[in-house]
């Protein structure tokens, strides 16, 4: 008898084959090996299904209740369409930074360290994301889409290289729709340099300042602090929803705080809505969206992580913190100052004065 086809072998593995096929497999080492392979694959698939998550205990209560009532009890999803809850029922998510800081202390002090938890709450997912935010090592490159309204308006693609060992060492670039760099800022306390690139009328102007003594506070650190603050506020908000969804790279947790009506408040930062999409494998935030008010000025911010690369110890010949000039770029040498804006302004005014003398 000829060796069996994939379909026939599949039937043998499933116990659905006729006697002739089964006896052939008994006597044919090659077919037996292929059947073993199919069974092995199916065991792997069964393992994936069996580790998809245990049935939550509350489901039994829901099923009991629905059987007793002969109708579905409150489920986990709802049809799109119902209006939001009345305003008086919505929680007020108006928290001052000081409150958030105190709550953060409580949350991190009280929450147990995570080993292999069987269940996660929204607050715990956010807590692990916070740990991930502050646990980077070596050089890291992040590329993301940033959209803001309010204090600043616009949509940018940002590429950020940060050295976690030296937080004031970083390189941030803004990339235009055609892929060209339209602005960049780099600071390297190791080489004592700070460089800014500005693109005006299709030409790059690069101001390079050498011999800096006091590196300024890192922009990534400031952005990270804002994200940490918002996430801490989300943790403290009642009524967060937590769902697990399939993302393009695997399962993701989506934590969302319910939208609230903006209220008059004296808080420095009011949070009206926030959503974080967190990778279920490494708890890195992949998407983040928040809206509210900073100093009573409305704002909204959203970013989507496009690329993430851990560079480790940089061994390549190029310096990731350098802004390399192109052939048509205008290079200007600046003088170190306490503030980067001063460096830029002083350099430009000096160059303007030089031109005027002719």
């Amino acid at each position: 008898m000829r060796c069996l086809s994939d379909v026939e072998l599949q039937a043998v593995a499933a116990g659905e084959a006729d006697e002739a096929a089964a006896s052939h497999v008994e006597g044919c080492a090659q077919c037996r090996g292929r059947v073993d392979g199919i069974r092995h694959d199916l065991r792997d698939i069964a393992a994936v299904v069996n580790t998809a998550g245990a049935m939550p205990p509350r489901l039994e209560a829901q099923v009991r209740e629905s059987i007793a009532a002969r109708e579905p009890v409150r489920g986990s999803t709802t049809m799109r369409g119902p209006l939001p809850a009345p305003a008086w029922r919505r929680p007020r998510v108006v928290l001052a930074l000081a409150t958030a800081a105190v709550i953060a202390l409580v949350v991190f002090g009280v929450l147990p360290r995570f080993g292999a938890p069987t269940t996660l709450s929204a607050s715990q997912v956010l807590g692990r994301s916070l740990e991930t935010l502050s646990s980077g090592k070596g050089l890291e490159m992040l590329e993301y889409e940033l959209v803001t309204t309010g204090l600043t308006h616009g949509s940018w693609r940002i590429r950020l290289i940060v050295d976690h060992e030296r937080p004031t060492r970083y390189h941030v670039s803004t990339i235009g729709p055609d892929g060209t760099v339209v602005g960049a800022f780099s600071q390297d306390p190791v080489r004592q340099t700070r460089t800014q690139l500005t693109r005006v009328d299709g030409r790059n102007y690069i101001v390079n300042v050498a011999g800096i003594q006091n590196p300024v506070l890192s922009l990534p650190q400031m952005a990270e602090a804002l994200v940490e603050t918002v996430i801490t506020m989300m943790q403290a908000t009642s009524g967060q929803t937590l769902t697990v969804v399939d993302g393009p790279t695997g399962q993701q947790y989506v934590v969302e705080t319910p939208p609230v009506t903006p209220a008059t408040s004296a808080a420095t930062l009011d949070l009206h809505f926030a959503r974080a999409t967190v990778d279920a494998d490494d708890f890195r935030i992949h998407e983040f969206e928040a809206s509210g008010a900073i100093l009573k000025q409305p704002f909204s911010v959203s970013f989507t992580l496009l690329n993430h690369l851990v560079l480790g110890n940089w061994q390549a010949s190029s310096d990731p913190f350098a802004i390399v000039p192109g052939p048509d770029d205008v290079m200007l040498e600046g003088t170190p100052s306490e503030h980067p804006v001063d460096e830029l302004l002083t350099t430009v005014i000096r160059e303007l004065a030089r031109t005027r003398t002719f």
Partner: protein
Amino acid sequence: MKVVTMAAASMPTDPSGETLDLFHQHGAALYRFCRVTLGRADEADDVVQEAFLKLLQHLEKHGDRSNLRAWLFTVAANACRDRLRWRVRWLPWRVELDTRVVDAVDDRPDLRPARAALRALAPRDRLLLTLRAQGLSYREIASAAGIREASVGRLLARALERWKRGVESRKR
């Protein structure tokens, strides 16, 4: 595979109790099946609940009891298909103070390529492999997936091949 077969003579008179018994026997497997098929825990909850409510109605109307396990998977598979088709119409439950928790995603690294490859399959391939992994026979799979029994072997073999290619590409 455990097939629930009941003779008419031994038919219980309490459909509610029988439904709960069947929930204890098959609820967990049905939940995992829905979870993998839908990719969402909250929707899996609802489908399981609906399936057992329909089972109750089925038993009260003295419906066919020859293979209630396959019947349950068929109902759940249909519900999952409907949900996937109309997913855009569904939103997460958003009641204030709902402090329920979700299951932590299993982080067995050795299963990651297998899980990712299963998730990347077309819905029908994933449905067939998941039903097979739950130990359903070709006849039961045909009933649950709405295909001819004669086609099950061929479609399963193709689905398995596509899944294997997906696993290999993720291991590289």
